[in-house]
């Protein structure tokens, strides 16, 4: 029955069809969560796992995840790898170029906290959340494709639980 199973809705049957009554919020969140087009952001070894996830064995496409090479077309930024201070300014610029609503997924120890480069390192940013807001963190060094897919399912929960007034500018989108 399509939409009926995905979002809370009421269906009223009339001869020859039916009328679906639901909320705009639920439909928007459902469509947004079901097709997260992600920005290709391979920075280090995590990118290899991301590529493996996108390839045929794990097949990201079946979750509605299609990679985009431009931030203008992307909904989700997957930061896969070590973010250096020098790259950090570029990451922030690309994040600002993405259209709202936009989400960030930090993949692996380096993007989450600096990982193995936390101590005694002059060049690595101690977590990408110091420059852009992160919605979902995935632990691992690097995480396996299964972890990445679990992370994207967590991201769906984040999107499905957001409120419509978040879009209206009452408060900045996370």
């Amino acid at each position, binding site marked *: 029955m399509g939409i009926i199973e995905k979002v809370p809705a009421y269906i009223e049957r009339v001869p020859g069809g039916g009328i679906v009554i639901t909320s705009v919020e639920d439909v928007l969140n459902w469509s947004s969560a079901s097709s997260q087009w992600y920005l290709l952001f391979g920075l280090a070894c995590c990118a290899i796992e991301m590529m493996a996830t996108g390839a045929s064995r794990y097949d990201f496409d079946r979750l509605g995840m299609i990679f985009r090479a431009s931030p203008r077309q992307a909904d989700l930024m997957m930061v896969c790898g070590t973010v250096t201070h020098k790259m950090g300014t570029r990451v922030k610029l690309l994040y600002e170029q993405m259209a709202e609503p936009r989400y960030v997924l930090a993949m692996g120890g380096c993007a989450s906290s600096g990982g193995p480069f936390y101590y*005694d390192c*002059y*060049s690595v940013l101690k977590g990408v959340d110091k420059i852009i807001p992160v919605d979902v963190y995935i632990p691992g060094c690097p995480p396996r494709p299964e972890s990445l897919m679990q992370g994207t399912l967590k991201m769906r929960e984040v999107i499905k639980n957001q409120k419509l007034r978040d879009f209206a500018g009452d408060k900045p989108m996370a």
Partner: protein
Amino acid sequence: MTRQEIEQKLTKDYGRFIEVMPTEFPEAIVYIAKEKYVEFCKYLHDDPDLAFDFLFQLGGVHYPNDRFEVVVCLSSHKHQHEMTFKVKLPHENPEINTLINIWHVADFFELEMMELFGIKVVDHPHPRPLLLYEGWDYGYPLRKGWTGPDFIPLPDKSTSAE
């Protein structure tokens, strides 16, 4: 050539300026006097028996309060042998000449060494920042004892083990 043959040849030709280090590795390790650095490199590159046509590593080492060293690793496609040589530099104002005219690959290695160790390459054709971010003004990060913004030193294990 084996390590012993290379060591013998270098001692025969440059005996007054080099110091052969004892090693168990298959490649020779020698120290060369700083004033013969470029001449020695030309000799290593051009001599038909040595023919070191490939530089695969050039880097710096910092010994705090003592000296800097430049370490150059060479190999030869023709003879399939390798060697390493080092140059000692003073702790204050370390300076060295460029090797670009002999091995062009030394270009980026020297830029990196200049930026991260502060070892000045005096006749480098285009000295410029290469790796650190724009507006870096915190010194040379690979020197021992360096600290800077967002730098977290490793906690002492003997005190934090509890």
